[in-house]
């Protein structure tokens, strides 16, 4: 199907060359659940045409509360989440090239290296650390989203979430305090307040939309204001997203966890 030149007229404020930038950008999405499915839908609407999708999971009935594009029939057919995402993308943009990896990204890291931007929609702190480490090695911006539900006895539950832009050369998620020994140890001990990975569609939508907005700004520079990393905190009870206070107290200098001269494939040296 051909689209008229004014197909994107409503987003022409993004800049005269913005659509070419968007179409040229190879987007990787690790995790096509509640967050990733929102993200690919919005990217397709915006006109992104090159996708690499990673997820080995199949849709289950419990996913229907939040997985965008998923249907009861998909549940009956045990459809892969990446197949649902691909159907969603191609339904909006038939010209889109969607590479589907029905596996965890770690098993196909060479494919991940091709991406210009990666959306991290993975579960857990350790998965985030691994994804960021690889993104840094190949100089790829990573936009991480995630949410959790906290329960304190005597109080209503609270939804918290984050959107983080981790840019090569800039402070990483460890520098920003999001990843730390405590959170990794707590996860290793399977600590949790409200069961395994509580998720709801509206908060996923807020976080996904914010992540997409960051990506569009990064690719088109429409706002002329995105000039450094981002760490936004979501609070479900108030419906607010605010910059994390830690951003004001980051140590000066380059990121010590991912030195920029540590990029590229690992070398094999005979000693």
């Amino acid at each position, binding site marked *: 199907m051909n689209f008229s030149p004014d197909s994107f007229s409503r987003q022409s404020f993004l800049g005269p060359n913005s659509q070419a*930038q968007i179409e040229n950008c190879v987007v990787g999405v690790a995790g096509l659940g509640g967050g990733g499915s929102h993200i690919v839908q919005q990217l397709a609407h915006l006109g992104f045409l090159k996708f690499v999708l990673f997820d080995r999971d199949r849709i289950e009935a419990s996913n229907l509360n939040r997985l965008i594009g998923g249907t009861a029939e998909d549940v009956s057919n045990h459809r892969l989440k990446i197949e649902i995402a691909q159907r969603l993308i191609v339904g909006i943009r038939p010209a889109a090239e969607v590479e589907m990896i029905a596996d965890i990204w770690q098993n196909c890291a060479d494919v991940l*290296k091709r991406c210009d931007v990666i959306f991290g929609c993975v579960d857990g702190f350790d998965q985030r650390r691994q994804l960021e480490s690889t993104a840094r090695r*190949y100089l790829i911006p990573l936009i991480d989203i995630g949410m959790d539900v906290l329960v304190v006895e005597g109080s209503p539950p609270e939804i918290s979430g984050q959107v983080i832009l981790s840019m090569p050369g800039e402070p990483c998620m460890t520098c920003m305090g999001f990843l730390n020994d405590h959170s990794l140890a707590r996860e290793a001990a399977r600590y949790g307040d409200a069961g395994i990975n509580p998720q709801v569609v509206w908060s996923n939508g807020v976080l996904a939309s914010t992540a997409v907005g960051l990506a569009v700004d990064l*690719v088109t520079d429409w706002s002329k204001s995105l000039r*450094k990393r981002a760490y936004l905190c979501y609070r479900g009870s108030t419906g607010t997203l605010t910059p994390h206070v830690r951003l004001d107290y980051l140590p000066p200098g380059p990121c010590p966890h991912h030195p920029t*001269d540590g*990029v*590229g494939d690992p070398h094999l040296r005979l000693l």
Partner: protein
Amino acid sequence: MKADIRLLGSVYAAAIADLSRPHPVAAERVGFISVALGKLSPNHFLLLGHGYTAVPDAHYLDYPRAGACIGPDAIRAAMQRILDTGAGQLHVHLHDHSGRPRPSRTDLRDMPALVKSLNVVGPACAHGAIILSSDRAWAQVTVPDSRQLFDASAVTVVGFPLLFLNR
């Protein structure tokens, strides 16, 4: 053989800032970008630009027939950098216009000899040359499996914003 080049935003900014400065003798400046290597597939390489090194003023020769002519000290320094760090070297200079830059006859004549010297000390690295305009880029590189210079298929700057200089 295919190669994509990805430059760290700070490296690109440092290169532009340095190469835009006037030189006492030469009409333009040159520099070197340090690159690490990644493989996307057996015949598709990724060159990751993670450092920029300016050529000191004293390493230029007074040679009016070219925009800039660097002497043996500059080449030796680039070769030593390969030995010290294991990083490949991309010779870089600016063309002062917008649109896709084209290499001059001098660039095309002299570049293979320079890259050959770099390959002598760093055969496991990628080397080459990149020309930047105000909004695009042109690059030729060699990779470990091929000593012939070939055009890079993409040049991307990973900064704020993300720039696709050649795609």
